[in-house]
């Protein structure tokens, strides 16, 4: 029987009080839905409430940093990222670790401090091979943290397969056993995208939701009733709204109708690719104005994200990167999104006319809520992980100056002003 050793917890406390207290000064914070002028404190990789430190611990900051009026916001969370920098998480398992390392490091410059590597429809062999190696792990200088895998497919609609490989799509489930047969262990899985209209899908949804997996509806030919039934079984999310689902129709609103449905027992979140290409600005505005609290920015970026302009060979695909588009060479077909999260935030502001704070929340607070990590991610609340960004904000646009994970600076933009750490030695006692 496990017991709590009181001496060990007090030891821990002592250790904590010996840790350095950091105070970022001369900054503005995105906190509780607004921008406030305040200092930002952290210790041991967690955001610190300075008031009890002052009154109870009687301690002061050991290190102060002048932020030169930077805006501080939580680190971005991307819950749908297929790869980047030439690597794809769903193919090429030989280079999986290499790819994860490259991507998680690379996205630090885009403000992403944690993400869900996304595996698209694949063979059972690939899931069994890849999933055990995509363990959740904290972020750090080596890269953004992993909050668990997002499995997009293979239990999806053939009609709405998008770029998924048809030979691996499963159009029904005999029982929930199919989930473990196909995926193997679900330990590293945070999110599953499934089409609710498939035979057996509702039981699978209930099963997954019971295991605290965020169930998302997508790549679906289902109508609103299918969506509502799934939501009542524990689904909470809609994968890249508008994409790979029935279009909104006034007599059959489809999954889009879940945004305003009265038959859903809990708040619905939905992913949106705000790259200005995959979602028309008008559609983005419709979604936002209908249900702003549920909007989650996702990049859904593929392997060509982060590559330079021009032609690249990615697995079997030859793609041409130009601006924010990657097209199959020799055609007009989009190969997938190559957008970065900082771009999505800027584009969301531009296209939907939302405030900076609203846009940031759609990349921080909302995804954290959607996957049940809001206690430690996606906010600057006291006690949350000190994953944050220093931004330069001009008008309604932002650029990333520094990315911090667990209180450690893990990325600085080349043009960012140097942050000077001033160490204090409080020796004098009364």
């Amino acid at each position, binding site marked *: 029987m496990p017991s709590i050793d009181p001496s060990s917890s007090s030891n821990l406390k002592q250790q904590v009080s010996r840790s350095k207290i950091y105070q970022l000064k001369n900054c503005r914070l995105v906190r509780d839905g607004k921008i406030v002028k305040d200092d930002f404190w952290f210790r041991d990789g967690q955001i610190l409430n*300075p*008031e009890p430190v002052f*009154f109870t611990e009687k*301690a002061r900051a050991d290190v102060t940093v002048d932020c030169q009026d930077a805006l501080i916001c939580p680190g971005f969370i991307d819950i749908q990222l297929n790869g980047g920098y030439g690597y794809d998480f769903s193919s090429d398992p030989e280079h999986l670790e290499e790819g994860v390392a490259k991507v998680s490091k690379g996205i630090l410059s885009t403000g992403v401090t944690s993400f869900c590597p996304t595996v698209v429809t694949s063979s059972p062999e690939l899931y069994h091979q890849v999933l055990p190696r995509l363990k959740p792990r904290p972020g750090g200088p080596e890269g953004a943290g992993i909050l668990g895998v997002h499995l997009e497919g293979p239990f999806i609609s053939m009609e709405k397969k998008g770029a998924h490989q048809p030979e691996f799509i499963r159009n029904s489930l005999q029982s929930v056993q199919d989930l473990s047969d196909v995926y193997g262990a679900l330990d590293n899985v945070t999110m599953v995208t499934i089409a609710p209209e498939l035979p057996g899908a509702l039981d699978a949804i209930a099963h997954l939701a019971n295991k605290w997996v965020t169930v998302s509806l997508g790549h679906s030919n289902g109508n609103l009733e299918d969506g509502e039934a799934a939501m009542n079984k524990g689904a909470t999310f809609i994968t890249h709204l508008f994409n790979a689902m029935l279009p909104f129709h006034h007599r059959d609103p489809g999954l889009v109708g879940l945004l305003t449905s009265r038959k859903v027992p809990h708040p619905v979140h939905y992913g949106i690719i705000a790259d200005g290409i995959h979602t028309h600005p008008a559609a983005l505005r419709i979604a936002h104005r209908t249900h702003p609290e549920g909007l989650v920015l996702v990049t859904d970026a593929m392997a060509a994200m982060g590559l330079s302009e021009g032609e690249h060979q990615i697995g079997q695909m030859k793609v041409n990167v130009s601006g924010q588009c990657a097209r199959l060479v020799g055609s007009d077909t989009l190969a997938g999104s190559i957008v970065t999260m900082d771009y999505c935030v800027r584009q969301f502001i531009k296209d939907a006319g939302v405030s900076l704070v609203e846009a940031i929340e759609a990349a921080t607070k909302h995804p954290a809520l959607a996957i049940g990590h809001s206690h430690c991610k996606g906010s600057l609340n006291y006690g949350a992980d000190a994953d944050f960004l220093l931004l330069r904000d001009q008008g309604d646009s932002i650029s990333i100056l520094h990315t911090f994970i667990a209180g450690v600076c893990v990325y600085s933009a080349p043009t960012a002003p140097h942050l000077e750490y001033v160490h204090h030695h*409080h020796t004098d006692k*009364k």
Partner: protein
Amino acid sequence: MRESKLLEKGPDNTMRLVILDDGERVSEWAARYMIKRINDFKPGPNKYFVMGLPTGSTPLGTYKKLVQYHKLGKISFKYVKTFNMDEYVGIPRDHNQSYHTFMWENLFKHIDIDPNNVHLLNGNATNLDQECQEYERKIKEAGGIELFVGGIGPDGHIAFNEPGSSLVSRTRVKTLNQETITANARFFGDDVTLVPKQALTVGVGTVMDAREVLVLITGSHKAYALHMAIEEGINHMYTVSALQQHTRSIIVCDESATMELKVKTVKYFKDLWSVHSKLIEDPMMKDF
């Protein structure tokens, strides 16, 4: 004759009334005066400047100025000890209406004061009487209060020494009067039941023990209290009037707070201004 005497003796043995144009100037003047007093004192590791501090809307502007001057490098609180006047009983320390929160948000978090030198009454102490006695002891241990800064309520109360408080009272638990509770409801979601009914407060005697007292009074709603404070006798229904017996006190007020004073009184103190301004002459005070 009187002028030269005052100049010789410094500001002792007198109650001064400084009348300024508006609240903004009161804040500025008070902040500069506090800074001058601290700096003239030349505090150091073995010589702390001990201050009594108030909360409320009147000192808010003064704290803002203090923070500004601190950021400009004009004042350090490294060798300053503070004792706050009062705190509610039974609301969490970090409640947004607690005086801990007020002091933290408006002063302490912005300055270089050592948290070990900051003292506030603990309204959640298990033994409140003991907490109060301990507070008096700590003040004594710090060498007494050099400068006590305060504000007053419209009924002339200083700290939570409500009308009828003993003028020799010490730090203690005080039950708030109904008027104060009703007035405070606006800070507690307009729900009078949420307003604390008790507070810990330094006594009138505790304030009177300070070597100097500086009281800020602004606004016409405090005009009658100012009148009672200086133009009538010492009266426990207007506890601030006890200052008439203090050897070194300054009341800084704005024009609106003088509305209930006799013209003669106002004139008298305004004439004295030339003297008073010399007494506190300092490059920082020159603008006044």
